[in-house]
């Protein structure tokens, strides 16, 4: 086991001091518990962006993602939803080489817009929630300035829980 760990460390570049930005768009899937209760879930495609400051084993920054839930119901009465999620994140990576697993947590605001349509009338209302999440993933720096991270997170706001799976296509700008 020790040999394997040493091999990974050597392959990943070993421990060396690092300080950089990692920014880029994110694409993924967000699942959420439905009003039916139990384990019923739906999911939607989500997109946004992420910016992290990388300092040795630590990464911290902001992420933004959004998704829409198409109106459900029928043409007479339906309700749709737009969700925008902005969070502060902190992540800890176990290795500082090109391939680095990490865990992290985040907290922020989910802004939810509900659009209700009843016969000819339409209403739009907005509410916000404190959202928090925990997860982990892998960061792969495959060129000197580019990398990809794959992240899976469990989140909760109000009485809604769900999972986010997303990929960040990032680059490390050189200053």
């Amino acid at each position, binding site marked *: 086991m020790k040999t394997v760990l040493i091999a990974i460390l050597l392959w990943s570049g070993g421990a060396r001091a690092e300080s950089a930005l990692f920014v880029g768009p994110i694409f993924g899937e967000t699942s959420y*518990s*439905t*009003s*039916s*209760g*139990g384990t*019923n879930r739906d999911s939607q495609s989500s997109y946004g962006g992420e910016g992290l400051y990388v300092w040795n*084993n630590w990464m911290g920054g902001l992420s933004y993602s959004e998704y829409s*839930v198409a*109106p*459900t*119901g*029928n*043409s*007479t*009465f*339906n*309700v749709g*939803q737009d969700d925008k999620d902005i969070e502060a994140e*902190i992540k*800890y990576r176990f290795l500082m080489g090109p391939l680095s697993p990490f865990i992290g*947590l985040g*907290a922020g605001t989910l802004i*939810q817009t*509900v659009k*209700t349509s*009843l*016969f000819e*009338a339409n*209403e739009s*209302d*907005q*509410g916000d*929630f*404190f959202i*928090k999440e*925990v997860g982990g993933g892998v960061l792969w720096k495959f060129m000197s300035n580019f990398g990809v991270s794959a992240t899976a997170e469990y989140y*909760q706001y*109000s*009485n*809604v829980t769900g999972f986010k799976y997303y990929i960040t296509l990032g680059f490390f700008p050189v200053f």
Partner: protein
Amino acid sequence: MKSVFQIFLMSFWALFCALGCSSTFEPGAGGTYKVRIPISDRAGHYHLETVTLTSVTNLSSLSGSVVNLRVNGQTQEHLQSNGMKQVWITNMGTVPTAHFIKSGDVYIPADHETSVMTTLVYQFEQIKSFYDKYNGNSGLSFPRTALLNMRRVISDGTNREARNNVEYVAGLDFFVIQPYDQDLMPIPTNGGILAHEWWHSAFEAKRKFYAETRENALGNTQTNRLICRNYYQYSGLNEGIADYFGYAYSGHTFFGADSLNSAYISNRDLSDPKSLTDEGADTDEAGVCKAKDEGYSLGAGIGHFLYVLSEDWGIDEATKAAFNFLNMYMRLYNTDVDKTFIGLKRILPLFFENHPPSAALCEKIQKLTSIPEAYSGFCLKLSDSKPLEGKNK
């Protein structure tokens, strides 16, 4: 580094656990919740309105003192050889987790399902209050149970699923609402339909109180022609008065059409004239009790009859008469179900025990039936003259 990592993990757990799963739906003044849901006015026009839920103690599950909900279960229906349906629940479904956003002090349902469920709870609160005015909830246990979006699989070889209907299942004391796929207002948002079903539960409570012992003693004796005919009258009255209560609560004579375009509601606009008849069910040669239409034609006649009363007396008085009728009818049914035919001649006078009809009302009633004996007694008493005769078409 190890200690930094430990602090990181502890912070994370503190964040998740401390802020974790506490409810974010705080009630307003008096423990009530303001919600914005689709409501119908008395002309049958729907609009979004902010109303107050007074019975709900947990907004997430929408549970409270009036009704508890479960969603997405399944029932199985089997048609027995004697024509009776046997229904059993194979999956009770789950307790809902309603989603809301808060705008000011008003909770806005965040999805269609939540909006439908919330409207159902509000309508049940209002219907309970409506029935309370007439002491019409006696014998009912609270909270009531409503099973929404219940799949109804019919075991007839096809395993087809029934849709777009609601029923009160007396044996279980549940309201069961099937999945809805029409392009109108969903059934749980239709106060008239819900008040109709609520009547069935009130009717059942009275049956249990007055007639259950008697029915049990009689056993399954619908092969008896008299009991068969009386049972048909009983079913027809149940349906007809239920339609009237849908109207009395909603103010809309054709409330069913807000949600359903099925053929079986096509003749159920209470303002459309319907005739009152004693014809309907009978035993066939094999002794099987056959109802033409499970009581709907008599029901439609009774529903229109009560509508006519409400036009003359007002909804409040007609509703009182309906409840007064229910108590007297159940006693009569208990004593006479296997002795004499409980037809219109014995049914109609019960509506006028406390409120004799005017001559004008008698004329209207006369037009509804070709059975003079059905009204000659109480109309004679009023005018102290000859009873009105014949059918005025």
